């Protein structure tokens, strides 16, 4: 039987409609879609896709189960390596990971592994009214603490509870999920899905304590004093960077983190039913070219902006954002301005931003990051009338724990230094995810969380 060269498309909300609502853009595969796509998998003996997966999911195995209609078995295989399939099926950059190695790329589209993963996870969520699975994990009688309930912390917790530890996650926010709840917008990752995943972990026995900022008040040493035998730090890269240009503190200039936190976590799109406001805006400039910048731009459209300028100092080729998200943003009408960099913001008499000055850039030889370095073109300055700016030029590790933990080694930008299995300079303290690598992806953080869980288990087994 000939293999279909093109992938099965996933249904999406029409751009003209979705741009004014916060519902999920991509509505997922139907059973028919999933069966059709699963048939395309060659089930290669060498399983090249697995080497692209940071958590080593047995990808061909779960796809074969979908092909046979054994959806429960498919999701069981996913759960074996991945405690957040609802999430990763939606937000993993599969095209740079598993799918990049798919054999089908030689003849056409790769298998849409991510869409199939999402299908299996959604199937479980929609078809199992009540989760009745009883968990029988060993009981080791040892307490471990996880700081931060983002992707790294959740996946670390998922493994540690299976090993038999008493696992407590400390989360500083009032809701759990870290970047999954404050950062990634509802239209890409519905928040009730994150809650479902966190509740799955709770049902497995993980204790989640919200509203505790470790490092301010209770410190790492206090956790040891309270009987925790090992600690995992997964506090992420949450510190927003600004460019240090004039006017950045004007009213109406937000960091992407603040903008997205207001909208996603605090639900300011439902203001005044929810109390946290966000300033209304008609012409919005989003600075940056990553996924967070795109999330901000598309959120601004949904909040009623007429015109959203994406302002990025490099070219389209250099954008770190996912191709699929760029495509979605273009469909929705985001105005991309490549090779453009802001140099100042100007405000009105009340201190609200109303103008941005930019200059055009050109690309020179590659810099340390391997990307071509942008250089300003003399005499290319121009101004745009805007009433809001969202600065999305990156984040660095949250500094609070590093500042209050004597002996914890960090790098220049605050990344916690770890050995090859994730142990920090303090015995028994592990770290993983963006707090170690700087801003990266959800699945990479999950991979680090799992690696540390195993290392913590090895460490505690030797004790």
């Amino acid at each position, binding site marked *: 039987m000939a293999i279909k060269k093109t992938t099965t498309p996933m249904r999406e909300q029409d751009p003209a409609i979705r741009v004014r609502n916060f519902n999920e853009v991509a509505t997922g595969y139907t059973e028919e879609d999933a069966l059709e796509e699963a048939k395309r998998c060659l089930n290669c003996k060498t399983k090249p896709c697995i080497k692209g997966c940071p958590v080593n999911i047995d990808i061909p195995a779960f796809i074969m189960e979908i092909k046979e209609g054994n959806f429960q078995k498919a999701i069981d295989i996913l759960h074996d390596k991945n405690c957040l399939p609802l999430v990763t099926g939606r937000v993993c950059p599969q095209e740079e990971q598993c799918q990049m190695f798919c054999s089908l790329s030689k003849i056409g589209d790769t298998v849409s592994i991510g869409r199939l993963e999402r299908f299996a996870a959604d199937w479980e969520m929609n078809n199992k009214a009540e989760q009745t699975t009883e968990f029988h994990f060993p009981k080791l009688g040892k307490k471990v603490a996880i700081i931060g309930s983002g992707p790294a912390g959740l996946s670390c917790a998922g493994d540690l509870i299976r090993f038999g530890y008493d696992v407590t996650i400390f989360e500083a926010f009032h809701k759990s999920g870290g970047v999954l709840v404050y950062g990634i917008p509802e239209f890409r990752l519905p928040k009730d899905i994150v809650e479902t995943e966190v509740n799955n972990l709770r049902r497995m026995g993980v204790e989640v304590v919200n509203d505790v900022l470790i490092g301010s008040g209770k410190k790492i040493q206090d956790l040891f004093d309270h009987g925790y035998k090992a600690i995992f730090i997964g506090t992420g890269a949450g510190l927003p960077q600004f460019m240090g240009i004039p006017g950045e503190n004007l009213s109406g200039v937000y960091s992407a983190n603040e903008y997205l936190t207001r909208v996603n976590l605090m639900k300011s799109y439902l203001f*005044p039913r929810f109390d946290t406001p966000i300033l209304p805006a008609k012409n919005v400039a989003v600075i940056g070219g990553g996924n967070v910048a795109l999330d901000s731009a598309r959120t601004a459209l949904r909040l009623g902006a007429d015109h959203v300028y994406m302002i990025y100092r490099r070219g389209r080729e250099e954008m770190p954002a996912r191709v699929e998200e760029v495509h979605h943003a273009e469909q929705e009408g985001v105005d991309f301005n490549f090779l453009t960099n802001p140099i100042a913001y100007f405000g009105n008499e009340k*201190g609200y931003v109303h103008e941005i000055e930019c200059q055009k850039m050109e690309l020179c030889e590659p810099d340390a990051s391997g990307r071509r370095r942008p250089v300003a073109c003399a005499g290319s300055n121009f101004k745009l009338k805007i009433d809001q700016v969202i600065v999305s030029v990156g984040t660095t590790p949250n500094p609070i724990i590093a500042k209050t933990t004597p002996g914890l080694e960090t790098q220049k930008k605050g990344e916690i230094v770890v050995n090859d299995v994730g142990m920090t300079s303090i015995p028994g303290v592990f770290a993983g995810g963006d707090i170690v690598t700087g801003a990266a992806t959800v699945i990479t953080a999950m991979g680090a969380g799992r690696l540390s869980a195993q290392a913590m288990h090895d460490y505690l087994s030797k004790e």
Partner: protein
Amino acid sequence: MDKNKSYNKILDVRELAKSIKMMVVDAPEVAAYAKAGQFVILISDEEGERIPLTIGDFDAKKGTITLVFQEVGKSTIELGTKKAGDSIAHLNGPLGHASDIKNYGTVVVIGGGVGIAPIFPITRALHEAGNHMISIIGSKSKEFLFWSEKMKPLSHEFYITTDDGTLGIKGFVTTPFVEFLKDKKIDRVVAIGPIPMMKSVTKVTKENNIPCIVSLNSLMVCGMGMCGACRCKVDNQSRFTCFQGPEFDGNTVDFVELSSRLSMYNQEEKLALDSYKEKK
């Protein structure tokens, strides 16, 4: 569901002064670690916003903290309707840097309006550290003044000022301050209150080369350094009030920018208050 949900129970609510409420909250985890100068972020109900409040008092043995707030907008008015026995949905703290406490010599502490509350634990700590304490607390009028009975025993010299002269010295907190500056050597000033007050205090301290610490009440969302809503300009550098403050060198704070950023949501705040009143 979460272990800490049984905490955050309000044990006592009192009206301290006109539109200023005091709440004693059962929060052993906060009280155990709280130090003078730190703050909490609370959400009164699930749909509420995150409200930063400096800690007015704390008692690690009893496991309680005391919060003092002025009912100015929807969120604080709603918080003020809570009664003893009710709970606060979420409470995170202590947050921010603690005050630098040591024996400086002679320290002037100045609390204006609701700023009297956070100045109290700082006064107590500086007093315990052996400083000669000169305290000034002030408000618009007698009916807005509170905690003179808590402040006086910690003060070697104690002044009350009211704008209208209904209590103590008629004038601003700077009135007695500039007076005794003439013949006293002051080693440090800590001033907490409305922006115009901190601005006028720092004008005097700048002129006289006296270190002056202020605690800023920037707008905040996260309180943990991940959003930047609270950024302010100190010594021409952008700083996050939540984790780099809330205390800063007042002599280098850009109060004009701070005040502009504080009024950013005036329209939205009015809308929220109107729609709240309509519902009531």
